[in-house]
């Protein structure tokens, strides 16, 4: 038990939940009851409850009381990073082309653009130990007076600085599929059999401007990627008390 009263109340209630003494959906004792059980003031109990609520153990229904959360067991999360989350180390990223074109069919919807809008298409080949393992198509809207091509020629990951700057407003969505490669993919990835590829489509949206910043299609040979997901864990290390 912690020396600080509200923290020891938190761990006591948490223990009951984890042991199953308090079951998901069950109602927690009322505030006056808790005050009695733990011999604590109302503010202390509220502080404990709010911490438990932050950590996802309880929720409160105004006027009714506090309940034990029913954790969602079919939401999984996984960490994904194209450049250093693969089964092998990427040692070379080659820029194959930077092209400005009319938005291709299918892509315009992804970027919320119209058919005649111009987009920038960047194609990059990722290799490991001289072996090409993944091919990436990046699309974003052409905006006048930006040195996109110049920057592309200089930096492999053009959006990285922007991603870091806007980390809190960028919303990313991933969609994962499996696709048989066409001839272009086979040639660029240098293999001939009909091995299916992972197709990972990433949409990056700026939530404050509601604009789609970038849409990426990432093809990777299956032997270089495995996806492992688990139930979301609450990170307690950064809680502010």
């Amino acid at each position, binding site marked *: 038990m912690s020396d600080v009263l509200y923290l020891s109340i938190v761990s006591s209630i948490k223990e009951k939940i984890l042991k199953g003494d308090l079951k998901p959906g069950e109602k927690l004792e009322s505030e006056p009851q808790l005050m009695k059980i733990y011999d604590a003031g109302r503010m202390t109990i509220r502080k404990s409850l709010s911490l438990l609520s932050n950590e996802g153990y309880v929720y409160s229904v105004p006027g009714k009381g506090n309940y034990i959360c029913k954790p969602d067991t079919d939401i999984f999360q996984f960490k994904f990073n194209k450049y250093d989350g693969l089964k092998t180390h990427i040692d070379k990223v080659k820029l194959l*082309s*930077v092209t*400005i074109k009319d938005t291709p069919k299918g892509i315009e919807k992804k970027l919320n653009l119209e058919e*005649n809008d*111009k987009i920038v298409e960047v194609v990059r080949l990722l290799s490991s130990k001289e072996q090409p393992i993944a091919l990436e198509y990046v699309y974003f809207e*052409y905006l*006048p*007076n930006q040195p996109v*091509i*110049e920057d592309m020629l200089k930096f492999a990951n053009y959006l990285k600085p922007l991603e870091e700057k806007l980390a809190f407003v960028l919303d990313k969505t991933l969609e994962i599929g499996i696709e048989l490669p066409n001839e272009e993919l086979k040639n660029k990835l240098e293999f001939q059999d009909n091995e299916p590829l992972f197709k990972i489509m990433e949409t990056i949206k700026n939530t404050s401007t509601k604009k789609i910043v970038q849409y990426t299609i990432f093809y990777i040979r299956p032997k270089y990627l495995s996806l492992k997901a688990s139930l979301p864990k609450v990170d307690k290390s950064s809680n502010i008390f």
Partner: protein
Amino acid sequence: MDLKDYIAELDVKNAESKTEELISQGITKGDLYEQVMKGLQIVGEKYAKQECYLADLIVSGMIAKDIFSAAHACDNNVPEFRVQGKVLIGTIYEDIHDLGKDLLIDALKNYGIEVINLGVDVPVAEFIKHAQIEKPDIIAVSCVMANSIPHIKELAQSLKDKKLLDNTKLILGGAVTHSGHIDIPHIDFMSDDLFLGLQYCQNYLTERYKLEK
């Protein structure tokens, strides 16, 4: 705003609707041509002053191309945007860099110039063979790797000997053009700046074919 201003602003949508408006008002092909060229020129000047970038240069070409095909679609008397002329292009033997070459190809095509792309790692004999078949106005060679310079020298000499440069310009692009002093005979122009390369081709071909407006 005029059409030329929309092009200069790289405003694709307004350039398009302005074109439609001008066409419906019966603009003459000479006036249309002039506006587009003026717009392209402003973009070029901005690029030279570093107020806009490569992407803008390419898009301005795309806008021009779209305008002329719209005008052509409405009235067959309006010629398609075409700086007549043909460029044969490739990356020299033992060099596989193609980014700069491909950007120039896109830009040239947007300016209505016919481009024959031989790809990368092109042997001298291959350049010669296609120069004989295609009779291009310009042969453009791309080279990034300094160790390929001897192949360019061989190509230049060989083209000269076979009298394939009598009616054809030979130009060189890529990083080797600024790697110290390189001395290659019979080269008419060289630069590692895409815009300068594009401008050279455009000016030379326009002059050569004296476009009828």
